[in-house]
C-alpha cells in the first residue's frame, strides 16, 4: 500500500512539475500577456476613466476594481492553462504517456488542476504587483483572500479540464472562454458594484457565480462586498465538488481520450 502511495505521490508531483515547467517555458504566451492586458485595464479604466468616476463603495475606483481585475486574471489563466495543456496533450497524443502509466484518473485530474491553479496564482501575483504601481492595496482578511483566490482558481481549472475533454479542435477550447467566461466575468462585478444596477439585473446577477468570487475576494482585500461571504464559499465549494465529480466521471468513462 505504501509503495502505491509513494508511486502516486511521485506521479502527482511529476504532472504538476511538468505543467509548471510548461507555462514557465512559454512565459511570453502565458505570463506576459495578462500583465500587459491588466496594465492597460488599470491605465484606461482605473486612471483615465476612473478619475472621472470618483469613489465606489467608499474607495477610489482604482482601488475598487483592483481585486476584481486580479481575480479575473486568475480565473482566465487557471481555465486557459488546463484547457490548452490537456487539449494539446490529446491533440499530440502524448496524453497516452499518462494513460498507459499506472496513474489513477483522480491523480491525472488533480495534477492538471494543480498546474492550472499554479498558473492562475502566478498570474494573480504578477497582476497584484502591477496594480501596486497604480494604487494602494491592503488585505483586510488574509484567510478569506487566499482561500477565495485558490478555490476560484481550482474551480476554473476544473472547468478548463472538462472543456478540454470534450474539445475536438483548438477552436472548441476558445468557445467557452469567449462566449461564456468573458461575459460572465465582465458582468460579475469586476468594474462596478451591482447596487448600481436596477433590481431586475441585480437579481439576474445573483445567478452569476463569478459575482460571488469577485465580491468575496474584494471583501478579503477591502472589507466590502455586495453579497454574503458565506454564500460565496458555499457556492464555490458546491461547484468544485460537482465539477470534479463530473470530470472524474468523464475520465473514468474515457470520454475524448480512449477508444
Amino acid at each position, binding site marked *: 500500500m505504501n509503495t502505491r502511495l509513494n508511486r502516486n505521490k511521485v*506521479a502527482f508531483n511529476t504532472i504538476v512539475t511538468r505543467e509548471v515547467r510548461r507555462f514557465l517555458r512559454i512565459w511570453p504566451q502565458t505570463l506576459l500577456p495578462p500583465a500587459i492586458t491588466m496594465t492597460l485595464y488599470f491605465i484606461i479604466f482605473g486612471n483615465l476613466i476612473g478619475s472621472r468616476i470618483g469613489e465606489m463603495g467608499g474607495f477610489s475606483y482604482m482601488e475598487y476594481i483592483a481585486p476584481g481585475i486580479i481575480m479575473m486574471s486568475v480565473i482566465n489563466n487557471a481555465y486557459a492553462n488546463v484547457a490548452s495543456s490537456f487539449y494539446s496533450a490529446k491533440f499530440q497524443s502524448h496524453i497516452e504517456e499518462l*494513460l*498507459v502509466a499506472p496513474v489513477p484518473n483522480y491523480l491525472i485530474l488533480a495534477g492538471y488542476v494543480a498546474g492550472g491553479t499554479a498558473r492562475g496564482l502566478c498570474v494573480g501575483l504578477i497582476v497584484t504587483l502591477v496594480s501596486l504601481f497604480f494604487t494602494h492595496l491592503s488585505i483586510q482578511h488574509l484567510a478569506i483572500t487566499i482561500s477565495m483566490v485558490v478555490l476560484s482558481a481550482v474551480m476554473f481549472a476544473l472547468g478548463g479540464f472538462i472543456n478540454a475533454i470534450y474539445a475536438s479542435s483548438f477552436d472548441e477550447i476558445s468557445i467557452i472562454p469567449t462566449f461564456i467566461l468573458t461575459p460572465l466575468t465582465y458582468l460579475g462585478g469586476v468594474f462596478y458594484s451591482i447596487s448600481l444596477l436596477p433590481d431586475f439585473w441585480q437579481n439576474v446577477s445573483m445567478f452569476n457565480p463569478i459575482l460571488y468570487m469577485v465580491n468575496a475576494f474584494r471583501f478579503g482585500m477591502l472589507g466590502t462586498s455586495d453579497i454574503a461571504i458565506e454564500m460565496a464559499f458555499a457556492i464555490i465549494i458546491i461547484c468544485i465538488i460537482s465539477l470534479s465529480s463530473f470530470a472524474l466521471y468523464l475520465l473514468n468513462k474515457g470520454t475524448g481520450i480512449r477508444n
Partner: protein
Amino acid sequence: MKALYIEKLTKTYHNGFSALKGIELSVNEGDFFALLGPNGAGKSTTIGIITSLVTKTSGTVKVFETDIDVDSETAKSHIGLVPQEFNFNGFEKVKHILITQAGYYGMPAKLAEVRADDLLRQLGLWEKRDTAARSLSGGMKRRLMIARALVHNPKLLILDEPTAGVDIELRRSMWLFLEKINAQGTTIILTTHYLEEAENLCRNIAIIDQGRIVENTDMKSLLNRLDKEMFILDLKEPLPADLSLPNINFKKIDNTTLEVEIKRGEGLNTLFSQLNEHNIEVCSMKNKANRLEELFLALVEKSEASL
C-alpha cells in the same frame, strides 16, 4: 509464468465495426513474441486494450497474472509501450521526456535521471539529451520512444512496428538492442510488417487477421511447414530459348534471370547438375522472399477465403 494471457477478447467500436472477435493468446515470460497481421487486422486494437488505451467490449486480459479489470495500475506498471505513431511532446527536451515518464511510474527524480542517462547513452541519444524532441531525426525519434518505454524497467515491452521507416543500419542496431534486453529477461511482443524482422528475432508467433488469431505457434514449427522455397538465380550468359529442366518448376524472369521452385528436402544439387548440363553458369543466388512471408500470405489468404 504467463507475461500475457488473453481470453475471448472482443472489441466492437461504436460504429459497429468488430475489430476483435474472440482473441485467445498467451505469451510466456522471457519470450520474444511476434504478433503479425495485415493492416487493420486488429494488432493495434489488441495492444491498445492491453495498455488500456482502448476499452474492450468483453474478454479477459492478464499481465503477469494481474487482471487489467481488477488492478489495472499493477498491470500497467509491468508494461512498456512503443506505439506506432510518435506520441511525445515535441516541445519537451529529450531528457525531460524520459524523466517525466519515469515519474508517472513512481520513480523518484534522481533515480529517473540516472536511468534516463543510461538509456540515452545506450540508444545513441546522449548528445541530443537537451534538444527539443521535435528536432530529432525520424530514427532518433523511434529510439527515443524505445528509451521512454524502458525507462521504468518494464517486465513486458510491447513494440508496435518500432522499425517502420527506419533505415536498415539503424534497424539492425535496434534488433541487437532488443535481443540484448530480451536476453536480460524482458519479455517482448513485437508487431511488424518486416517479416524478416520477426523471423530473425522472435521465438513464438501469432498471426491475426480480421480480428481472429489464425495461427499461434513457435517460429520453428511454422517455418517447418514450408514445403517449397523460391530462389532467384542470376546467370552469366543469356538462357537458351528451349531450356528444359526436368522435374524442376522454373520461370524465366528475363534472359539472364531464372526463378526456381525447390521442394523441401530436395536440395539444390539436382538443379545445379541440370544447369551444368546446359553449360549455364550461375553468378549469384538468393531467396525470392523470406520464408515467413510465404507462410504469412498463405495463412492470411486462407483465413480470408474461409469467411
